[in-house]
C-alpha cells in the first residue's frame, strides 16, 4: 500500500491573531506553529492503514523551511519518509495542490490522506483539488473508514447526519475529528524524526488563483450587559431578546 499524508502547519490554536504591517498576512512574531489538528488525524489514519495492510507512509508538505517542524512531528508519530516541496512565497490552495499532484502523478499512490481543513485558511478544499487534478476518487470529512482489498466504505459527516460512501482505490480522503484518536509520538519516532531527512523538491505549482488583499481583525463587539445574577434576571433577558435584540 503506497500511502501519502498531506500536512500543513498552522498557528497554535491558542494564538491571538494580529494582522501584520502589510495588512494582508498575520504577524508571525511569537506565533508557535503546530501540525494542523486535523492532519494529526490524517497521519494516524495513514498509520492504521499501513499497520493493517502493509506498505509505506510518506508525508508531504508545501511551504518554507519552517514546515520542517511539522514534518518532524508526523515522522515522530510513525511516518516512514517525507517530501518537502519548498517555496518561500505564500501560495494559495490550488497551487499547493498542483505541486503535490505533480509528485503524486509519478508516485502512484493508493491512498492520500489530508485533514478536513486547515485551521488557518479554513478552506477545506485541498483534498478535492488533489482528487480532481489526479482524476481519482475523493471522500471528504470522513469520520469512519474501512478498507477491504481495494474497496472503501466510509462515513462522512454532513449537516444533521452522515453519508455512507463507497468507492475504490486510488482515493483521497479528508479526515475529520471522530475518525480516530491520534497517537502520541514515540521515543523511537522522535529519534527517527531527527535523523530522517525529508526529500526536498522545488515548488512547481504554478500561479495562485486567489490572493488575500486585506486581513483585519473582526470588528470588536461593544461591551455586553450583565442582566442579573439570579433567576429574577430571566424575565428581563427574554424581554431584551424580544424587544432589543429582536432574535426571538
Amino acid at each position, binding site marked *: 500500500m503506497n500511502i501519502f499524508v498531506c500536512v500543513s502547519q498552522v498557528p497554535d490554536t491558542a494564538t491571538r491573531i494580529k494582522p501584520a504591517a502589510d495588512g494582508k498576512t498575520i504577524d508571525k512574531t511569537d506565533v508557535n506553529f503546530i501540525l494542523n489538528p486535523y492532519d494529526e488525524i490524517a497521519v494516524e489514519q495513514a498509520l492504521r492503514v499501513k499497520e493493517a495492510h502493509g506498505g509505506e507512509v510518506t508525508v508531504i508538505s508545501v511551504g518554507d523551511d519552517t514546515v520542517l517542524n511539522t514534518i518532524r512531528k508526523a515522522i515522530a508519530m510513525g511516518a516512514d519518509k517525507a517530501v518537502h516541496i519548498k517555496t518561500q512565497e505564500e501560495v494559495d*490552495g490550488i497551487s499547493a495542490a498542483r505541486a503535490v499532484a505533480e509528485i503524486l502523478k509519478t508516485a502512484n499512490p493508493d491512498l492520500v490522506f489530508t485533514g478536513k481543513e486547515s485551521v488557518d485558511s479554513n478552506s477545506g478544499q485541498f483534498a478535492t483539488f488533489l482528487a*480532481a487534478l489526479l482524476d481519482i476518487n475523493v471522500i471528504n470529512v470522513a469520520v469512519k473508514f474501512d478498507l477491504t482489498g481495494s474497496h472503501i466504505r466510509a462515513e462522512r459527516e*454532513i449537516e444533521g447526519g452522515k*453519508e455512507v460512501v463507497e468507492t475504490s482505490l486510488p482515493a483521497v480522503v479528508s479526515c475529520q475529528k471522530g475518525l480516530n484518536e491520534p497517537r502520541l509520538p514515540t521515543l523511537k519516532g522522535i529519534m527517527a524524526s531527527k535523523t530522517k531527512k525529508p526529500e526536498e523538491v522545488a515548488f512547481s505549482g504554478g500561479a495562485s488563483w486567489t490572493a488575500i488583499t486585506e486581513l483585519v481583525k473582526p470588528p470588536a463587539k461593544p461591551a455586553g450587559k450583565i442582566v442579573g445574577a439570579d433567576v429574577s434576571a430571566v424575565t428581563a433577558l427574554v424581554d431584551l431578546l424580544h424587544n432589543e435584540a429582536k432574535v426571538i
Partner: protein
Amino acid sequence: MSSLLIVAEHRNGKLKKSSFEAISKGASVAKDLGLTAHVLLVGGNEVAGLTAEAANYGVSSILTVTDPKLSAYANRAFATAVSEVAKAKSATVILLSATALGRELGAFVSVKLDASLASDCTELHSAGGNLKVIRPVYTGKALSTVELKQPVKVITLRPNAFPAVSSPSSPSVEAVSVTFSDKDFACKVVDTITASGKLDVAEAEIVVSGGRSLGSAENFKILEDLAAVLGGAVGASRAAVDSGYRSHEDQVGQTGKVISPKLYIACGISGAIQHLAGMSSSKVIVAINKDKEAPIFQIADYGIVADLFEIVPALTEELKKRSH
C-alpha cells in the same frame, strides 16, 4: 451572454434553507454585474417537484440535470453536471452553499473550469459591478478580503450569513442534458444516516450550547428542552465532547463547527479562545455562567451570572409561558 449560476441543494425532496439564501444573494449579484441568473438543480426524479420552490427567491430561470442515477449523491457526477452546465451557459460566477456538498462541488468545479475558489464566505459585495468577497480565516479570528483572479469565480456562502428574501416569479424550466462516464459514479453515497429530526448546529438559527459544567450527557436534557422551545439546536464545547456528553458533530469551535446563528446561548462555557473562534460571529450571544470573570462575558451581548441549572429551566418555562 455570460451568466451567474446558483447550485441549489436538496435533501429528502426539499430545497435547503441555505440554498434560498444563495439564490437570493445570487439574484442581487447578477443584477449588479449584469449577468443572467440561473438556478441549477441536479438529481433524480425528485427534481421536477422542486422547480416552483426554487423560483421563489428572485431568479426565474431554472436549469435541471436529471438522471435516475443522480438520485443518490455521486460527487464526481454532480461536479461534471455543474461544470458542463456552467460551460453551456457561459457562467462567470458560480454560487453554492458552504455545506458538505457545496464545499466539495465548489472545489471540483474550480479545477474543472480553471476557476478561482473562495469558500465559506460571509460577505459578498457587488455594488458598482465589482465583486468583493470576504471570508473568515484563522477560524474567525481574522477576516480576509480575497481577490479571485481567474475569469470564472466559484464562491461558497456560509449558511445563515445571508438573508433569504422571498420574491416569487414564474420560472422557466430548461432541462440540460449532460453525458456522464462510468468514472463519474465511481464514488457514491449508498446510505444516509440522519440523526432523526436533529437540527445541525451549523444550520440552526438558534444554538444552545453546554460545556464541561453540565457534568453528564443526561444533564444536557435541560439544554435540549430550551433548544426545543426556541426551535434551535444543541451545541457543545470540546470539554463536553471530550467528556463524552455530546458527539463530535455538536462541537463548536476551532476544531469543531464554526457557526453564525442569530442567537447563541452559552451555558456553563468558559469562553476559551478555541471556543470563541467557532461562535464569535453569532449575531447575538447570551452567556450563563456562575463565574463573572469568565471570558465568555467579554463577547456576550447579554449575561447572567448564576447557576445554569437554575437559570436554564427557568428560561425554558418563561419562553413556554410567552408562546401561549
